[in-house]
Every structure is written in C-alpha cells, then in structure tokens.
C-alpha cells in the first residue's frame, strides 16, 4: 500500500479491531502516520465504537437481573462425570472426535495401507524438496540488505539482515530466549537456510502438505506455505511462506505450546511485491550510504531515552528539527538518526554534531550523497571515483536534473533486463537438460517459446542500456576490456552465464550511478568496467539466443 492509497473504512475498522494480519496492519499503521485524513476517519470510527460501549452499559443497567441466585454447577459436573464413566471404555474414548474418526477409518486404512503410506509420505518429501529448491535459489540470489520485522506477542524489532554490522545483532533478551528455546537462528530468521537447519535438527516432525496461499503483502501473488509440526517439546511448529515466483522467503512464524509466537516478515519499501517481479531483484540501496560506526557503540551499553533526548537537543541546536524530514528512533540499542530527502548541508551538520557521540548512529540513505561527492569518514575512494564520473556525465548531459533522468532510465531498463534473466533462470532450474529431453514436442515448443520471449525482451533492454550509456561513457574514455567468452553448449548453462553477466552489469551500474558504494574502482576504470560488463552480457545473450533458436 503506498502512502497515497487510502484504506477503506472496512480496513480501518479491522485495523482498530486488531483483525488485520501483521504485515497489513503495519502497512496501515505506516499510512496513518503520514495521512491526517485517514487518522481523522479512524478517530470517527473509534468515536462510534466508544458510543457502542456507552450504549451497552446503559442498556445493561436497564435489563432485568437473573430472577434467582445462580446455582452451583458442581453437582451437575459430578452427574456428567458419572455418566461419562458409566460408558464402556471403548465408547467413552471414542467420543473423542479424532479417535472416533480414526476407528471408523481403520478398516479402510488397513486395506489401502500402501497407498495411504505413499500419501502420508508425499507431503514430507514435497516440503523437503521445495526447501531444497528454495535453498538452491537462495544461494545464487544476489546478496541484498533486507529489513526484517521480528515480532513476538509482546515486543517487536526491525533489523537489517546482511549488513555484517555487529550492532544489528542486538535483540531484546526475551526475544532472544524464545529463539534459543526453539533452537532457531535468530541472526537471519527469514531465510530458507535457517528454516532448513531448524527442521533438519528435529528428531520428530511432520510436514503438512505444501499449500499455496495468497501473499500477505500482495494478495494477487501466490506463496507456497510450508508448515512443520512437532509432537513434543516447547515448540508446536513453524511456518515459512515462499514466494511462488522465485522461492524467496516472505514470512515465517514459530509457535510455542504456551501460545507464544514469533513472526518474522520482510519489510518492503514501495513499490511492494506484486504485479511483475521486476522490483524484487533490484538492489534498492537500503543500506546506509555512510557506514554505521561500530567504534561509536560501546559494547554492552545501550542507548536510553536520555540519549534520544540528547540527540533531539543537538538537532534543535543546529535547526535540524525545523521541517527537514529527519527521523530519530531508538533501535537496536542505538539512537538512529536518518531520513530520506534531507538536504546535504543538513546531513553534514548532523554528522559533525553527532558522529562523535556514543550510541548514536547517523544513517542517511539518499543516493545523492555519493553523487554529490560528500566525503564522510570511512567512505571509499571508489565513491569519490563514481562521483567524478557522475560529474563528467552531468557535464555531458547538461546538468544534475538531466543526469538524474538519465540515471532513472538506465536503472529502469536494467531492472527489466534482470527480471527477464531471473525468469529464464527459473525455467532453467525447473527444466534441466534431462527433464527437458523428456518433454513431448508441444511441451518443448512451449518452453522454448517462453524462453525466446524472455530472451527477446532481455536483448532489447540490454540494447537500450547500451545505447543510453555507450555514447557518454566512450566520450569519457571508456573502452571494452578483455572479457570471458560466451560458452556453453546447452541453453540451461548459458542462461546461468546470462544471469551472472546481468548481475555484474547491475553492480557496475549501481556504482557508476551512485546508488551503491563501490570498492576498488578508480574514476578511469569504472566506465570501462561498465562497458565491458555490458559487452559481456551482450555476448552471452546472443550466444544463448543462438542455442535457443537451434
């Protein structure tokens, strides 16, 4: 849900009634934080609810009281107990609904034992096989920083997974002990690897049949639901939802016998998952451009509300609390200062004021910070290199605004290309050579048609990116360097090369356009690296196309 789509009254009523699922509820809450109009509507609904409660009290005061004193139920309890015990043993216990059903079906079960055995085993195999496939996809998926919301009945935290930042590991003790109780990896709960490790470590388990359900965040999309039950111990079971499109984990949940639970969900910034799968593979620069400062975090010392007030006071002193979208929050034991769209001048002032403070982390995630060449402590020389390249490009293109338009266009084409590459990889994984060879002629033709369609779109997008970038980059001295030749005799392996080359292009472009920091490039190498990566992708696409058309 974007900030501009107002939820209807029904959704708002379900929100205030606590009837929305976790992710949807958080979306509405975020919307309400930004939308006065909807907040007003919520107040009206709550007013009507409060009126209902007043009305109920009033009505109750007029209703007649019970005509006589309430009787003691214990005698009736004894009567029920006696009647229960007087029944024959077998009849008594067959009143249990499940046991009754089990007894009634026993004869049929005996006759069909072999078939039932197969049916019972199938779900476990299915869940295990699906997890195996998802794990394989997870290994090859580009590493991106993800924001995960971890919620228990009482507390919730949000953390970035994949930062490698030790401070991210901070977790309330109660939550940590729940993970420990379940023997579940709390460092990266929403991953196939963690779920598999947990599941594989169980002595007794039973998988429900894998079902498909609507994606909680994008109801038009489907998810596979894996549900593992445990007969003994503190944990009742766990659930993992995997996106049907790419087996990416979107939600997980652990349930305990004492009715406690932990839910972990991926927080997606708009655009949300849904519609096409293009957005999923774009590495949105969610990581802070300025590295967090581990040196500023005193081990064991957590930020308090006093630290937060100190930060607010410091922001006030420099006038950063006068309308700029600066956000201050206590998170992971630190006071985190950040915001999107904060002017560079203000960001610099905030860094100067707060960088030396313990337990404070200043994190602005605007790509423009790198583009402008803002030099914060610890920023890599490559960032400066990309800044210099961007300055060249800005000069060539006619200014900052033109560069941003150009940058958006290039990144959009690249996103589409990536989505096609991943779609092809999914097909390659589902139809390896031996499976494809077992297809009949129609099946094979359909598969090839799909692949060719993806390939033609991918090829067009690569051409678009090349035609957008090449003139500008060659003008600043970019040349195609030596590259790996396209090889592979089967389209399946060739698709892997296409995906790898696409990922390389994506990384290089991100550095060039300043949406992610680079590491080792210089301002002269970077343009050449980009055109070389593009040329390599072009060669792989052409090679794969020729294999598909064979």
């Amino acid at each position, binding site marked *: 849900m974007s900030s501009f789509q107002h939820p209807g009254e029904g959704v708002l009523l379900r929100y205030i009634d606590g009837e929305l699922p976790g992710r949807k509820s958080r979306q509405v809450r975020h919307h309400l934080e930004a939308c006065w109009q909807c907040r007003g509507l919520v107040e009206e*609904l709550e007013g009507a609810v409060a009126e209902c409660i007043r009305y109920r009290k009033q*009505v109750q005061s007029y*209703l*007649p009281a*019970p*005509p006589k004193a*309430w009787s003691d139920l214990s005698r009736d*309890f004894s009567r029920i107990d006696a009647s229960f015990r007087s029944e024959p043993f077998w009849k008594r216990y067959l009143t249990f609904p499940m046991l009754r059903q089990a007894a009634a079906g026993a004869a049929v079960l005996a006759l069909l034992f072999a078939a039932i055995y197969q049916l019972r085993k199938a779900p476990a195999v299915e869940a295990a096989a699906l997890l195996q496939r998802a794990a394989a996809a997870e290994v090859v998926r580009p590493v991106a920083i993800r924001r995960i919301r971890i919620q228990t009945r009482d507390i919730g935290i949000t953390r970035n997974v994949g930062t490698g930042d030790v401070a991210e590991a901070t977790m309330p003790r109660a939550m940590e002990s729940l993970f420990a109780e379940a023997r579940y990896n709390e460092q990266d709960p929403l991953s196939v690897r963690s779920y598999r490790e947990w599941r594989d470590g169980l002595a007794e388990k039973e998988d429900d049949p894998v079902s498909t359900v609507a994606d909680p965040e994008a109801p038009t999309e489907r998810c596979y639901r894996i549900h593992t039950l445990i*007969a003994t111990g503190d944990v009742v079971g766990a659930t993992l939802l995997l996106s049907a499109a790419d087996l990416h984990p979107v939600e997980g949940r652990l349930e305990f016998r004492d009715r406690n639970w932990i839910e972990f969900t991926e927080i997606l910034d708009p655009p949300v998952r849904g519609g096409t799968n293009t957005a999923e593979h774009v590495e949105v620069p969610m990581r802070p451009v300025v590295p967090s400062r581990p040196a500023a975090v005193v081990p064991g010392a957590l930020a308090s509300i006093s630290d937060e007030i100190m930060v607010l006071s410091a922001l006030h002193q420099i006038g950063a609390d006068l309308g700029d979208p600066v956000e201050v929050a206590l998170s992971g034991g630190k006071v985190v200062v950040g915001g999107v769209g904060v002017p560079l001048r203000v960001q610099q002032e905030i860094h100067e004021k707060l960088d030396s403070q313990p337990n404070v982390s200043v994190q602005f995630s605007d790509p423009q910070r790198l583009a402008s060449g803002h030099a914060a402590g610890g920023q890599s020389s490559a960032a400066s290199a990309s800044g210099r390249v961007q300055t060249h490009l800005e000069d060539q293109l006619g200014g900052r605004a033109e560069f941003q338009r150009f940058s958006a266009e290039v990144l959009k084409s690249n996103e589409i290309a990536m989505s096609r590459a991943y779609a092809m990889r999914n097909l390659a994984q589902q139809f390896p050579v031996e499976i494809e060879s077992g297809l009949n002629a129609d099946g094979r033709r359909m598969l090839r048609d799909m692949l060719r369609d993806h390939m033609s779109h991918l090829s067009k997008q690569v051409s678009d990116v090349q035609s957008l970038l090449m003139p500008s980059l060659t003008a600043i001295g970019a040349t195609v360097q030596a590259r790996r030749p396209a090889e592979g005799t089967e389209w399946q392996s060739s698709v892997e090369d296409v995906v790898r080359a696409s990922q390389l292009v994506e990384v290089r472009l991100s550095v060039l356009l300043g949406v992610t920091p680079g590491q080792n490039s210089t301002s002269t190498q970077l343009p050449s690296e980009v055109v070389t990566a593009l040329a390599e992708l072009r060669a792989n696409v052409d090679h794969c196309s020729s294999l598909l058309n064979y």
Partner: protein
Amino acid sequence: MLSIGLQLVTVFRLDRTATALQNRVTELFEESREDVFRYLLTLGLRPSRAQETVQEVFLRLYASLQKGEDIQNPRGWIFRVAHNYGLKVRARQAAEDPFDAGMELQLASHADTPEQELLEQERVLQFHRAVEGLSEQQRRCLLLRMEGLRYPEIGSALGISASAVGEFLRRAVVRLKKVRAVEGSK
C-alpha cells in the same frame, strides 16, 4: 496423526485433570454468566429461560472439554453455543409468551432527571433506535463484538465467514457513526 496422539495422551490424563477442569469451568461461569445472560435477553429470551440457558451452556462446555474437545477460545465457544441454543429456546418460548425488554420505554423514561442527564438519555435513545434499525445480522455482529468476541468467533457463532462479519460490522459502525454525527451537530 499428531492430533490423535495428543488426544490419546489427553484421555489418559483425564482423571487427574477433572478437578482442574471443573475449577476452570466454574471460573469461566462466574466471569461470564452475567454477560451471556444479558446477551440472551437481547435475543428475546425471558429472564428465567435465559438463566437456565446460561447454565446449560456452561455444562455443555464442561462436557465437551471432558470429552477432549480442543476449545481454543472458551469465551468465543460459550457465546456461539449460547447464541445457537438461545435461538432454539426462543423458538419454543415464542408460542408461550414472547419477551420484550421494552428497552425504548425504559430508555425514554427520564422523568425527574436533571437537564444534563436528560440530554444524555436522549442521545442514548437515538443510538438505541439506530441499533434497532440495523439489519439482524449487523445487530448480531455488533452485539457479539461488544461482548469482546473476535471476527472469526462471531462468524462461527452466526455461521458466516470472518470477512462477512467485517463487512456487517463496517456497515453497522458507519451507520452509527452518521447517527452520532447528526446528534453531535444538534
């Protein structure tokens, strides 16, 4: 298979847990009997019948637990059974002597009250008329929600889906919101 195993375990623990079960049901009875009684009055049961029905509902709860039924939310279960059993009792009683709480008359009887209270009573009366003007399903959903039941529990009691409950409640609350707005503008 797991559920059957758990029920078998439950069977062999029954003797030991019977007393605890009785205590638990007694506790629930003392907590909720007045709420269930009033709810049954709003269904149209006469007070004496409503009181008998309440006791019957809690005994059914005990018997069901004793038989190993897995009742996750006893309060939801109680209202569901009270609603369904209450409707049967009401159908039997209709031929004899239908009960009318005469709520409107009682709410309107504001003689000898100070002006402020009079206004408040007038407001409640308007609200009562609006509640009475809701469709049967909307009113049932609203009354059960007022008793603290969640949407799936209400749905279970009325034999409709949780999303239908959400829709009935939305219509009810929106209508009551308008009444409130009109009253507020007076």
